């Protein structure tokens, strides 16, 4: 991650990168209204437990508290978590199976009543053990949780079935907002259309499909925060609107991220009035061959697909036009569990000698009787980065004599094609919030073990390797187990090809201070630490 201030750049219009001073070094100023763009149309609902879209988070996270979270002043950390509603991060007890959280006693709901551990318990029970008729989108993240208890109004205890390194990151998931027990009990669907939390801002109004407004919560428990008097989020799915709005100062920031062209345009036009932060993104596209269709049932053909792609040369070239940049394996590159460059280069599709790899690919295709293979690459009708990645892949495959046609379809039919196995090869995506490799890599399991895996293969060995990694708590041994699972997935069986990870570029008016980029657009969005230096 780096923080840069844009400068007018001659010719290319690209900003020279300058390291800005540490944000924390300045004293935050109180006051002002932050207007920010939400890069989406209206969210389906405001219920964080139910939804998966960032539009819900960007619209409603400032109104809620969570139990724990990534550090707001260092959200790029992939291993550190801090308390929001608790008073201190607990040491695991009972061999790593019990976590006891003490809840702050100075927290008030926006209606003035006191927040207690019973509210935390009710919210987490609704997330982990949703009652019939209630949707909890991430219920599978908490399969290690046995039960949750609140022995008194200041204590919440999580008891696990088995110790797991995936638990704390899952607990810091940005959708796990704490709701008021009384409201949940009266109407579990209330939070879908209404907002009432204990976060840094109080909800004021929502103009359907247009904007959402909030004002400073004077009773916020993190003292002095929030610094802003008010916030207004404006929904705008179209990129040109967001770029113009930031340039014309109708909005100060958009948190999701824009492509390099938008960054260059803004920096060229607004110079040092614009600040840019960028970071690797815990999202990526995965090329998934349909193992149930010939000839993709043949590992030699799948290996040829991987060998043809020049990841090391392609990633930097693509990064100039698309929101991708870093070559990685199945684990987010910023994580301690991620493969090093040397480890990657030892696997199929990551070798340093592309000519040698392509010669091997041609040989494998010939051996498999698939020379000049013609197939369809199903892709999602989203420009960044899906169509860019798809077009690049086709160019790479052409170099080994493959004839590939890109079939671009809207989101609904794209999902449907994957779910029904109606594709040859598909550009799938794996986009996560908290960096939680033990859970994030479940995507590479067979469908029998992970419903959203679309390769159509059955592979007991893969499940065995994954479970070994998942249940390992020693960091060194877990890393080794992850390498074994990764090698099996990408090298031995070539179940999928991981394309370069997405790259998050956020540009904003330089008077916005305090916000730091994270590896996910879902994280660090309560806006409590943002202030304006006008």
């Amino acid at each position, binding site marked *: 991650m780096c923080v840069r201030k844009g400068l007018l750049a001659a010719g290319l219009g690209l900003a020279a990168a300058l390291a800005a001073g540490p944000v924390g070094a300045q004293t935050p100023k109180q006051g002002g209204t932050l207007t920010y763009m939400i890069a989406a*149309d*209206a969210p*389906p*609902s405001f219920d964080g437990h139910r939804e*998966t*879209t*960032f539009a819900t988070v960007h619209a409603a996270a400032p109104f809620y508290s969570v139990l724990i979270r990534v550090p707001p002043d260092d959200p790029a950390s992939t291993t550190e978590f801090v308390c929001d509603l608790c008073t201190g991060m607990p040491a695991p007890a009972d061999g790593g199976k019990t976590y006891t959280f003490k809840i702050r006693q100075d927290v008030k709901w926006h209606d003035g009543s006191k927040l207690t551990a019973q509210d935390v318990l009710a919210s987490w029970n609704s997330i982990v053990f949703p009652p019939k*008729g209630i*949707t*909890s*989108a*991430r*219920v*599978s*993240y908490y399969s290690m949780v046995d039960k949750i208890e609140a022995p008194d109004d200041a204590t919440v205890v999580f008891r696990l079935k088995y110790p797991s390194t995936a638990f704390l990151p899952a607990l810091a998931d940005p959708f796990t907002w704490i709701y008021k027990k009384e409201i949940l009990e009266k109407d579990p669907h209330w939070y*879908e*259309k209404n907002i009432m939390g204990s976060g840094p801002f109080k909800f004021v109004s929502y*103009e*359907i*499909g*247009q*904007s959402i407004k909030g004002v400073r919560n004077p009773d916020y428990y993190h003292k002095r925060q929030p610094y802003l008097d008010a916030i*207004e989020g*404006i929904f*705008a*799915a*179209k990129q*040109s*609107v967001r770029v*113009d*709005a930031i*340039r*014309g*100062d*109708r*909005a100060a920031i958009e948190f999701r991220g824009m492509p390099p062209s938008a960054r260059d345009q803004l920096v060229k*036009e*607004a110079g040092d009035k614009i600040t840019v932060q960028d970071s690797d993104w815990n*999202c990526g596209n995965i090329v998934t061959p349909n193992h149930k269709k010939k000839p993709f049932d043949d590992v030699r053909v799948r290996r040829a697909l991987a060998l043809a792609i020049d990841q090391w040369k392609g990633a930097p070239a693509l990064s100039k036009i698309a929101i991708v940049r870093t070559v990685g394996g199945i684990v987010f590159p910023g994580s301690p569990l991620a493969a090093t460059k040397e480890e990657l280069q030892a696997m199929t599709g990551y070798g340093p000698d592309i000519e040698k790899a392509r010669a091997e690919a041609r040989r494998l295709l010939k051996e498999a009787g698939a020379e000049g293979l013609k197939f369809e690459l199903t892709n999602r009708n989203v420009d960044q980065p899906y169509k860019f990645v798809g077009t690049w892949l086709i160019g790479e495959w052409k170099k080994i004599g493959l004839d590939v046609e890109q079939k671009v379809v*809207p*989101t*609904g*039919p*794209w*999902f*449907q*094609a994957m*779910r*029904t196995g109606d594709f040859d090869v598909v550009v799938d*995506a*794996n*986009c*996560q*919030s908290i960096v939680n490799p033990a*859970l994030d890599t*479940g*995507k590479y399991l067979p469908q029998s073990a*992970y*419903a*959203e895996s679309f390769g159509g293969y059955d592979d007991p060995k893969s499940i065995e390797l994954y479970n070994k990694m998942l249940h390992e708590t020693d960091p060194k041994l877990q890393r080794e187990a992850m390498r074994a699972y990764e090698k099996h997935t990408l090298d031995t069986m070539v179940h999928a090809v991981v394309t370069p990870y997405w790259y998050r570029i956020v540009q904003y008016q330089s008077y916005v201070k305090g916000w730091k980029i994270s590896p996910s657009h879902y994280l660090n969005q309560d806006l409590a630490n943002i202030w304006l230096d006008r």
Partner: protein
Amino acid sequence: MYRYIIKRLLLAIPTLAGAAALVFVLMRAIPGDVCVIRLGSGGAHVDPASVEACRLKLGLNDPLIVQFFDFLWNYLTFNFGTSMWSGQPVAREIAVRLPVSLEIALMASVIAILIAIPLGTISALKENTWLDHVVRMVAIAGIATPSFWLGIMSLVLVLDITYLATGKPWMPPIDYVPLWQDPIRNLSVVLLPAITVGYRYSAVTMRMTRSAMLEVLREDYIRTARAKGLLEQIIINRHALKNALLPVVTLIGIEFAFLIGGLVVTEQVFNLNGIGRLLVLAVQNQDNTLTQALVMLVVAIFVLTNLVVDLLYAWLDPRIRFS
């Protein structure tokens, strides 16, 4: 006349029913459904049980024929349902957006009429003069230029001009405020899109006015009027223009109705929360309930506009009688 209006309104029922059946079938022909999109478009894990629960709740697992008759019965009882995407009543979703689209459509129509009818008439009267050539050039440019491109360019131009003039780029607000709440802010939001749309609209109308006027000016009754020694102004205004306006009014009616639901790209370029943008969103999200309601709304607007146009015919040409 009242009998004629009632007859026309009754004739609208089969049109609406046909549109309803068509949109019902087409929406269900698209692979996938709203539940998968809502729970999966973030790219993270989707719990299959959640998808199934969502489908059950929305009645997507019911047989198609049951869904269709539910839909028809609900419309007969003026129950337009709730959006499958947002859970909000469809009537509320539309009520929020309709004033935006209506205001743009009305402003664009006024702009178009104010520009097109005088210029089209002058162009016809001054046929093959430099004035005619200039007007025709402006009209053809208007037809050839896509509104969305013009919209983007106009915004960039405003930003650049204000930057050069003041050192600080300025653009109109991007959040709509109703006219009665803050007229200045409202006009600064809608003026640029209305001009952008109105230009293309006026270009088409201008061409139609010119050709209709040229045709009428060659009619025998115009020659007779001139032979009688009538003032040219009376001939143009009372005899030529009124008759030439028949096809122009038809065109204005069609364009107006189209603008209510057809400003998809312009609404996106200016971030206007209108009916066109909502319709695209509803189709993208496979929100069947909302899409059906919006299509029905657009069809109803077309039917009503056509009726109004037909009524205007009688005012413009007294020979036309309703039967």
